[in-house]
């Protein structure tokens, strides 16, 4: 039996097989019963009637003989009519027998009976004619005993033989019917026994197959129930964790909502500040333009200062040249004073006063030299200061140029700032609008999360119910397994 078949199909096939066997048994029984009934009916309808007809033949022959005797005794025409009637009945019975018989032996016997009757009737008619001719009764009796009585005995004997043959026929039919009934009974018994064995086999196969499959399925169900319990436990744990996470999400979403509103308010403030910034940047642009013009004036003044400083440097160089001359003169004076002192020393006493003068000239030259040195230092400082000032001024000029360029760039940058602030204002308004939409969306998300939390709680509750159901399913599968496979359940 195929494993892929359903239980209903398997049961239907088994019941169909058993039903076919029952049908076979019934057909065989009906056929046997019909055979027996037909045999009995034939015995009753045909053979028994033939026996009866044989008796009626015997009676008709007897009545005909009696009517003939009555005519012979009384010469009453009515007796002849009665004899004629009896003869017609006799012939009618013969005709009926011919229609019901199909065996040659019986037909031959009927033909012989008819011939006997014809011979008897001829003898009887001749006797009756003799009587009608006026013969004496005794002669008639003798003739009757002599001619008619043997014919009648022959007829009697043949009718008796026919009756016995039909009786034998009845016995034969009866025996055949009984044999057919026996055969049918044995056949029905055999087929019934075979059907019973087949039904037992089918029941055993069906029971084993169903037990194996149902047991396997029940074991699977039991295993699945255990897994379902584990899964439900895990799902319950996960659901609780999910509920906690949803609670945290709700808190976070609320904070996000507050933050979104704060962002919207901040965006409004930023938009206001951006508008103010745009005004300030515009004013700054004008200030930068004016400052650039002022820087141009400063640059011209600085160029003038540089020119004067360069003149001052040239003058300082000229002063340095003059100081060089003074220093040279001082040094020469000093040398002259020293040489004068040497000469005065060589002049002896008369040169002492000259030595004093020479000494004073030398001191004066030293002092002038010191002053010239101081002046040179001052001039050097002035030149250094002038150079430094020129360098600084040139640096200032460059700085002013750079400042002028930078102010031009500042003006351009301020123009860009104005444009960018406009863009920023627009973007801030979009941010404000988006943040409000975001707040609305966050509120919707909050509602959705609340719904999800509710669904999670319901899921947790249903998980408990599922766990109970899985437990019941496990118990049921164990009980079912015990019903199907007690040894396995134990």
């Amino acid at each position, binding site marked *: 039996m195929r494993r892929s078949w359903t239980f209903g199909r398997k049961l239907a096939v088994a019941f169909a097989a058993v039903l076919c066997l029952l049908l076979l048994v019934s057909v065989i029984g009906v056929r046997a019963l019909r055979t027996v009934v037909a045999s009995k009916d034939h015995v009753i309808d045909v053979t028994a009637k033939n026996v009866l007809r044989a008796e009626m033949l015997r009676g008709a022959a007897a009545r005909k003989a009696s009517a003939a005797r009555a005519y012979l005794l009384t010469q009453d025409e009515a007796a002849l009519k009665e004899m004629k009637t009896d003869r017609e009945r006799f012939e009618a019975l013969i005709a009926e027998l011919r229609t019901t018989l199909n065996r040659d032996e019986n037909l031959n016997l009927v033909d012989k009976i008819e011939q006997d009757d014809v011979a008897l009737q001829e003898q009887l008619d001749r006797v009756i004619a003799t009587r009608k001719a006026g013969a004496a009764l005794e002669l008639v009796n003798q003739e009757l005993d002599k001619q008619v009585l043997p014919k009648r005995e022959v007829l009697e004997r043949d009718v008796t033989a026919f009756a016995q043959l039909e009786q034998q026929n009845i016995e034969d039919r009866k025996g055949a019917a009984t044999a057919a009934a026996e055969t049918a009974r044995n056949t029905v018994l055999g087929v019934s026994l075979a059907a019973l064995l087949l039904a037992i086999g089918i029941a055993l196969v069906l029971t084993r197959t169903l037990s194996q499959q149902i047991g396997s399925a029940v074991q699977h169900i039991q295993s699945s129930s255990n897994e379902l319990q584990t899964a439900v436990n895990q799902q319950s744990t996960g659901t609780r964790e999910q509920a906690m996470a949803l609670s945290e999400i709700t808190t976070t979403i609320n904070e996000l909502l507050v933050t979104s509103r704060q962002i919207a308010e901040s965006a409004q403030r930023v938009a206001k500040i951006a508008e103010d910034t745009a005004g300030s940047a515009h004013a700054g642009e004008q200030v930068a333009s004016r400052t650039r013009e002022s820087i141009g004036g400063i640059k011209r003044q600085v160029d003038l200062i540089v020119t004067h400083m360069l003149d001052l440097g040239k003058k300082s160089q000229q002063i340095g040249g003059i100081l060089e001359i003074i220093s040279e003169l001082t*040094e020469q004076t*000093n*040398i002259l*004073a*020293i*040489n004068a*002192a*040497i000469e005065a*020393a*060589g002049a002896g006493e008369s040169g*002492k*006063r000259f030595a*004093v003068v020479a*000494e*004073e000239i*030398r*001191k*004066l030259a*030293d*002092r002038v030299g010191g*002053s010239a040195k101081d002046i040179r230092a*001052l001039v050097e400082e002035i030149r250094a200061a002038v150079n430094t000032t020129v360098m600084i001024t040139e640096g200032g000029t460059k700085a002013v140029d750079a400042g002028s360029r930078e102010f031009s760039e500042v003006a351009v940058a301020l123009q860009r700032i104005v444009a960018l602030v406009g863009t920023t204002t627009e973007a801030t308004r979009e941010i404000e609008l988006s943040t409000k939409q975001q707040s609305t969306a966050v509120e919707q998300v909050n509602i959705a999360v609340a719904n999800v939390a509710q669904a999670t709680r319901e899921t947790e509750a249903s998980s408990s119910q599922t766990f109970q159901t899985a437990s019941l399913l496990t118990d049921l599968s164990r009980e079912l397994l015990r019903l199907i496979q007690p040894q396995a359940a134990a």
Partner: protein
Amino acid sequence: MSPRASGASQVEALRRAFDQSFRAPPPGEEEETEDLLQLRIGGQALAVRLSEIAGLIQGRTPVPLPAAAPGLLGLAGIRGALWPVFDLAVLLGEPPAQDPRWLLLCGAGAPVALAFSLFEGHLRLARSVVNGAAPASGLRILSIPHLVASLQTPEGDPP
């Protein structure tokens, strides 16, 4: 104090000192002084007695001579005479001077000019100080006659 005010006060001080020098009496005999010229040779301060030299000049470039005398730079025409010029640093055992533009004229004995690079000034010190000047004081008194005498040795006669 402004530079203009400082310059005026300095001029006033110079004038006062100049006038004061003529008002003061000539120096007495109680304290004998000696005039010196301070110069620097090879990083050392030297002093030369003013009484030992005949003069101090600068800016005379000697004409080189084909001679092998140590320290001889050449001849220079000074005050109508030819003076042999020696490098004072070489004579004192120092490396040759880079720019010997000053010339000391040694008049006593033979006319010899000593060239050096750095002249630092005129000094007037007490004679006791000059005679007792020790090398520890940082000022070395150079004896010109002794130096000139060393040049007049048979091996080192000036040309």
